[in-house]
């Protein structure tokens, strides 16, 4: 075994790239939390990073094959936006990305050869992006003389683990939405059907946050363990709580302060997007914590309700995020009754409904009961409601609110 790089060499490399010790430790903390180890494990992660793979001098990069199935390349694109370590560091100092249709220098048969050799050698992780297409007996997707599904089987059989990256890989994604023209499904369901037993890690999202993949890779490569997975093989630390649980606009929800129309003054105040159909309360992911694109922003912060792109049942392509969540800007739980699907048109009037009214009453109640004493300034009557009495979902009592218990906190 050749010598490993020392911590000081590693530190030198980080410094050369403008990464301070402090931000490195911060990164380790984030990784430790996402890996489910808790922030206290940050020094352990730091030690693993410093002493092992990154910067090592002989054959220590972990081989990864990244296959694009029926994909839009969005997951690869998202990966290219990764924060720290950045994409170059990942492919030069963390993994040996031996096959990537978007990033590889090689082309044609040379590419396929690189993949074959990697499979032959074994001990690699397969990242699969895009849907698995069963249409035309799998021939809907062919690369280099074989069906896409044959490529998946070959690469999956010998893999240490398979990461199904993105909602399409988890269960077909939008391609599986009605009418599912290409007979799309997900990696887990397909491999099960093929009798291939390999550990699968499902990372949904459209696209999935690249930090999620990085956390999983680093946990496996450096600590030698797969993350804790839930019943759907999704990492529990990432997909254990709803968007709503950690939403930066949650306080406004509690206060009953809502955005009723895109681009409105209420949006400028950062009110809650629930009436516009936000799927935060039912979608499980830590988007609001990790954020996207160098942690610059995320959907809700930019004024867009969550459209539930992480919704993906790996055992049922029919339960894809499009089918479950459209129409995006309506609260629609009541609209899917059994097999009957009702899709209301138009964006013009945002949601009205019993649920929403109940929420506002709940919010008023919270305020009136003094449970949110230091919240945003409380309007007696929302400006928007006063202007649009016919669309208002607020229920107002004309009598002055002298009774602190009024409003129903029960």
């Amino acid at each position: 075994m050749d010598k490993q790089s020392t911590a000081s060499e590693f530190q030198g490399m980080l410094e050369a790239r403008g990464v301070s010790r402090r931000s490195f430790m911060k990164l380790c903390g984030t990784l430790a939390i996402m890996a489910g180890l808790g922030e206290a494990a940050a020094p352990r992660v730091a030690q693993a990073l410093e002493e092992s793979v990154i910067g090592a001098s002989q054959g220590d990069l972990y081989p990864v094959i990244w296959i694009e199935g029926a994909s839009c390349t969005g997951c690869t694109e998202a990966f290219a936006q990764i924060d720290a370590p950045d994409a170059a560091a990942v492919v030069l100092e963390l993994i040996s990305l031996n096959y990537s249709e978007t990033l590889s220098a090689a082309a044609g048969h040379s590419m396929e050869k690189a993949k074959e050799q990697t499979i032959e050698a074994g001990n690699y992780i397969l990242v699969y992006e895009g849907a698995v297409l069963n249409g035309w007996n799998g021939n809907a997707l062919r690369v280099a003389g074989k069906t896409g599904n044959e490529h998946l089987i070959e690469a999956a059989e010998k893999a240490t683990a398979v990461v199904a990256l993105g909602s399409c890989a988890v269960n077909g994604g939008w391609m599986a939405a009605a009418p599912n023209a290409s007979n799309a499904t997900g990696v887990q369901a397909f491999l099960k059907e093929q009798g291939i037993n390999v550990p699968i890690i499902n990372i949904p999202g459209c696209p999935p946050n690249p930090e999620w993949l990085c956390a999983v890779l680093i946990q496996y490569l450096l600590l030698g363990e797969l993350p804790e997975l839930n019943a759907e093989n999704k990492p529990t630390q990432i997909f254990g709580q709803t968007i709503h649980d950690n939403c930066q606009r949650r306080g406004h929800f509690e206060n009953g302060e809502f955005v009723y129309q895109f681009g409105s003054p209420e949006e400028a105040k950062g009110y809650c997007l629930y009436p516009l159909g936000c799927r935060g309360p039912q979608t499980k992911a830590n988007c609001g914590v990790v954020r996207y694109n160098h942690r610059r922003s995320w959907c809700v912060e930019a004024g867009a309700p969550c459209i539930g792109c992480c919704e993906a049942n790996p055992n049922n392509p029919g339960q894809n995020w499009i089918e479950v969540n459209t129409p995006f800007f309506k609260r629609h739980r009541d609209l899917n009754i059994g097999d009957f699907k009702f899709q209301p048109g138009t964006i013009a009037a945002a949601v009205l409904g019993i649920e929403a009214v109940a929420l506002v009453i709940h919010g008023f109640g919270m305020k009136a009961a003094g449970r949110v004493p230091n919240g945003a300034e409380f309007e007696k009557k929302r400006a928007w409601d006063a202007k649009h009495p016919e669309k208002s979902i607020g229920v107002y009592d004309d009598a002055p609110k002298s009774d602190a218990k009024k409003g129903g906190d029960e």
Partner: protein
Amino acid sequence: MTRSVIDPITRIEGHLRAEMEVTDGVVTDAWISGGCFRGMELVVRDRTPEDAAYIVQRICGVCPVSHMHSASIAAEQALGITIPNNARIIRNLIEGAQFLHSNILWLYNLAGLDYVNPLNALGADAADAYDLAAELGTPSADFVGLQDRLKKFADNGQLSIFSGNWFDTGEYNMTPEADLILTAHYLEALQMQSKASEIAALLGGKMPHIMTIVPGGTAFVPTAEKLDDLKGLVDEVYQWVADTMIPDTLAIAKFYPEATTFGKGIGRYAAWGVFESPFDEGTSYADRMRNRYLPAGVLDENFNISDPDESKITEYVGHSWYEGDADLPPFEQDTKPAFTEYDVNDRYTWDKCPLYDGKSLETGSFARVLVAYKRGVPFVKQHVDEMLVALGAQAGDLSVLQNTLGRTAARQVETLYIATLMKEWVNELCEAIKSGDSEYFRAPEKSDGEGTAFWEAPRGALYHSEKVKGGKITDYQIIIPSTWNLSPHDPKGNYGPLEQALIGVPVADVEKPINALRTVHSFDPCTACAVHIVEPKTGKKFETVTSPWGVK
């Protein structure tokens, strides 16, 4: 005579195959096969126009903004909405951020590796590299540190993304010092493309697949803090683009003069126009297209310009896997897939053959730059002329650029133009907000109609058209840039744009036809969305079919 096949073609978006006949070391015949098979137009049927905007952008992870933008424009046309001025500016900024991201990524990280050999940089003398950078007028970097990093990478013995590379073809011309400089910029570009994406994320929530362009305007409302961040990011990306990209382009040109001798293509171009200038309800759509910062236009073989005319667009399917050999306007087709086999003498692709007045057109950044030049856009005219002079040609002689190198080079003029515009738009937005304009969204007042968006993705002319009834989409058609560029032979047997460009390309090694790859990348193909309307059909044999993903 021998066949040379590249499959899969890498460093593009999607899957693509090029098959070429090579005679005496030169390509004499070519067939491009590609496409994908996901049924997008069918998925958005029976859904709302705003849902469609969110769903259709998933057709492509590289240019999602353009698809969402086009879907929103088509819905606005259908439902009679004129978006507020602030929304126009914000949408330009998001679109511009995507163009910058895409153009940077394409030049350095996708096409770049056809010219730059990072492993060769190991042999460079770092001190000489500083001198060379000064001579080329391109920024220096920590060349010593980079070499050290590359050495560690090389010593490790694993090639990662360079596995199976074609660097040994003897057709990589750059000196080790030049390779070192361009490798440094390859790594910087990876960061700068993500900075550009960060702008899209700031205004759109995340990138790829942004969240805030909606039919009627934007969901995003700027705050003072967001405007600060926006200005900082835009200035940073602008500065890097302005300092680095054109000098690097000229450096590549210096080492690869032979790339000016092939890859012309059909010599007819189309741009549908992108980045809206101010408009109001009274502005006709044709005027809007003409007035865009990168305007619309169709150029014939002699660079004569005309306004695009929707009625002249048809799609021919005689060489593609669809029933029959119709040549009809988008909504009049009833295209049903009908797989036969991969037969270059008959049908060999999922890609249809779009025609304009019976002829194929090249589209993309090069087409946009040529159209803008002929429309007299001052910035483009000035910088194209400067580039021509730097390449040793006469200002105004556009034919000098009609080749693989020219197509690759002209795009940087566009990148610089957009980076410059982004700075202007940030100021424009600040001024508009200061003047008290706080409108960002207008809801539709009707729920029936038909609308078409002519727009541009980074890869070229993009067409979305939809029919809406009762607030739901009844029919949706998309013609993607790569469908134009990758089209098969037309009804008269003429080559498609990329096929034509491959004819005459020198191939020294049929196993590693690097010049063909350079030519393919000069078009920046994006096949995931090039073919997209399909339904499953049972009972057909598929053994020998090249399918969407382009194979034998």
